[in-house]
């Protein structure tokens, strides 16, 4: 009975054009667009340092780690930017006259980028600034903790050294052919996370089919002599199979067709994708159980939640840093953020702790969604069908 249900559930899913589009075709299309948008960045030979303006005022100087990191990025043979240190008005004028591609400045302790247009250089400047700001923030946090532990004896120069060291370590990944453009990889990581979360549509649709209060087909299933647990689990497994299959295809497509760099961690990336897909499957189940809506309405809700999750996780530029600072808990419960951060940590850190924390957080979220759903499903009898 389980296999019979599973087989037909999978068959109907694979023939459902709307679901196939959102869970399979849409992420592939986005991946191709991303690849086209970042095509120039893949070719290091074409990458030339470009002019930027840095507003060097008290606010900038106060962010010593950030400033030190930018100094490294703007000096030496392998520099990314040709920097001009000016005040804000002068920088603005230079931007208007198109003498620079963008302005980097610090205001209220936050790094900002002002650009005109949406070219590749502007994207590189924006993403690099976000990355450096994030790293600097982390280094400052670590340094503060270290200083507290050392009783305030740590030398500030050592902190700057550490910042330079981190950025130096990061820069080869940007310029080294074996690790092409990690800044771009983050966009692809978020895309994989998005593909995982879109999968909530599948499990939501599958639950709709099982429950008599959600669909006419559900009524027919409910009067059959098949245990609800068998029907629900076989349907969920079908949804999960399709989701995982499409996410794996997406990762393989990115890796082998688009040439996205995932480092040497394909196995762990697949593992995290499968955990992320499980979380999304459970989320879709919860959505179906808790809210009586049409299939289309649920698809729209999943789409909106996923896109908001992607926004928090950094798919659309610098929002990740903003949200990480404004509401740090947000990305700790945002599955898209957890998946993206898990991939990111694989590429950036030798230590597996952050990856494991992200993976376990996703498992915990999946467990919470599952328990809440089952509580609602068990012995449910309906007031209306």
């Amino acid at each position, binding site marked *: *009975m389980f296999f*019979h*249900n599973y087989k*037909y559930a999978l*068959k*109907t899913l694979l*023939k*459902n054009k709307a679901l196939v589009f959102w869970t399979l075709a849409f992420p592939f299309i986005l991946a191709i667009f991303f690849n086209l948008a970042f095509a120039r960045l893949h070719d290091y030979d074409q990458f030339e340092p470009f002019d930027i303006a840095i507003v060097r005022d008290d606010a900038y100087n106060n962010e010593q780690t950030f400033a030190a990191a930018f100094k490294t990025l703007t000096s030496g043979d392998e520099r990314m930017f040709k920097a001009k240190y000016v005040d804000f008005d002068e920088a603005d004028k230079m931007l208007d006259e198109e003498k620079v591609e963008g302005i980097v400045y610090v205001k209220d302790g936050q790094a900002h980028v002002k650009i005109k247009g949406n070219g590749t250089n502007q994207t590189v400047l924006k993403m690099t600034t976000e990355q450096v700001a994030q790293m600097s923030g982390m280094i400052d946090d670590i340094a503060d903790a270290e200083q507290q532990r050392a009783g305030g004896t740590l030398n500030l120069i050592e902190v700057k050294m550490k910042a330079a060291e981190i950025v130096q370590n990061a820069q080869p990944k940007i310029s080294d052919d074996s690790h092409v453009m990690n800044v771009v990889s983050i966009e692809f990581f978020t895309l994989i996370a998005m593909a995982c979360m879109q999968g909530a549509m599948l499990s939501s649709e599958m639950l709709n089919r099982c429950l*008599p209060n959600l*669909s*006419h*087909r559900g*009524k*027919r*299933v*409910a*009067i*059959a*002599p*098949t*245990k*609800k647990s068998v029907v629900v689990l076989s349907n969920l497994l079908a949804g999960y199979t399709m989701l995982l299959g499409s996410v794996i295809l997406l990762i393989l497509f990115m890796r082998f067709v688009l040439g996205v760099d995932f480092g040497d961690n394909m196995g762990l990336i697949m593992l995290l994708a499968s955990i992320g897909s499980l979380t999304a499957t459970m989320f879709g189940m919860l959505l179906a159980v808790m809210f009586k809506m049409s299939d289309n309405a649920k698809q729209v809700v999943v789409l909106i939640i996923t896109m908001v999750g992607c926004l928090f996780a950094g798919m659309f530029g610098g929002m990740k840093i903003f949200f990480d600072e404004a509401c740090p808990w947000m990305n700790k419960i945002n599955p898209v953020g957890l998946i993206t951060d898990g991939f990111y940590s694989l590429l950036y850190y030798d230590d597996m702790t952050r990856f494991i924390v992200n993976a376990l957080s996703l498992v915990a979220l999946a467990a919470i969604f599952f328990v809440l759903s089952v509580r609602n499903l068990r*012995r449910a*009898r*309906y*007031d*209306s*069908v």
Partner: protein
Amino acid sequence: MKNVIEVKHLTKSYKQNKAVDDLSLAVKEGEILGLLGPNGSGKTTTMNCILSLLKYDAGDIKIFGKEMAPDAYDTKAKIGVVFQEVAVFDELTVYGNIDYFCGLYIEDKATRAQYVEDALKLVGLEENKNQYPKQLSGGLLRRLNIACGIAHKPKLIFLDEPTVAVDPQSRNNILEGIKKLRDDGATIIYTTHYMEEVEILCDRVIILDHGKIIAEGTNDELKALAKIEEKVTVEVAELSPKQLSGFEKIKNVDSVSYEEGALKVVFGKGKNNLAEMIEYLKANRINYSRIFAERPTLNDVFLELTGKELRD
């Protein structure tokens, strides 16, 4: 004959509104019981309560002698349901749909394949088995809906308005199929608001209104409740008020009306009413094109009992 279904004092409310009000009924093995009533009379709600799809406020429901519950799997295995709404998968073929729903009851593949073929034959969809639901007409889709509900050869079948919005050919096919199911030994609960179908199919009829049983019996028993014996309709091109009032004087006439060329005379009792009518028409030299008599219908019974038409 033993009872397949026993419902006692079933009550189900939606907020302040009582959808089923202290309803008790029994269905005998092998019979076709018609649940007749206008929209909103509680037919479908009663059916959903019996099937344990809905919570109900009070009452006892037994099917095949056992209390019905969502986890009464042995009982459920013997039940087939055809819902009012078409409930099939657009992504599966006709054969695939029947096979899927039949597979929820029948695990053995060979048996299931035979059952699916039998169901296709019963509803006349053998030639459409590789088509998808979207390629079927409304009538054929209804037939598929029925096949999905009865393919596993259930002993008790609930049919909830299975002929709504179907063409006459499909309706005939469906009604013939239902008779065949009864002949094969199934007990059938047939809910509808089409009195003609009830008269053709059902051994016994329960008339519902506002969640209550207002009448119960065979067709003839119910028709005996109507206070009319015969309705005679005469197509007359022209009729003066004097001529019209003359009809009221004919023996046994209860009421007379004339509208759009049709004279309707209702007789409360008597045997040779039609002959007397013809005599009267001849005697008064009233020209008519057509004349026919009708026995009271279940609609007349419903009108008599509730003061409104079944399809109001």
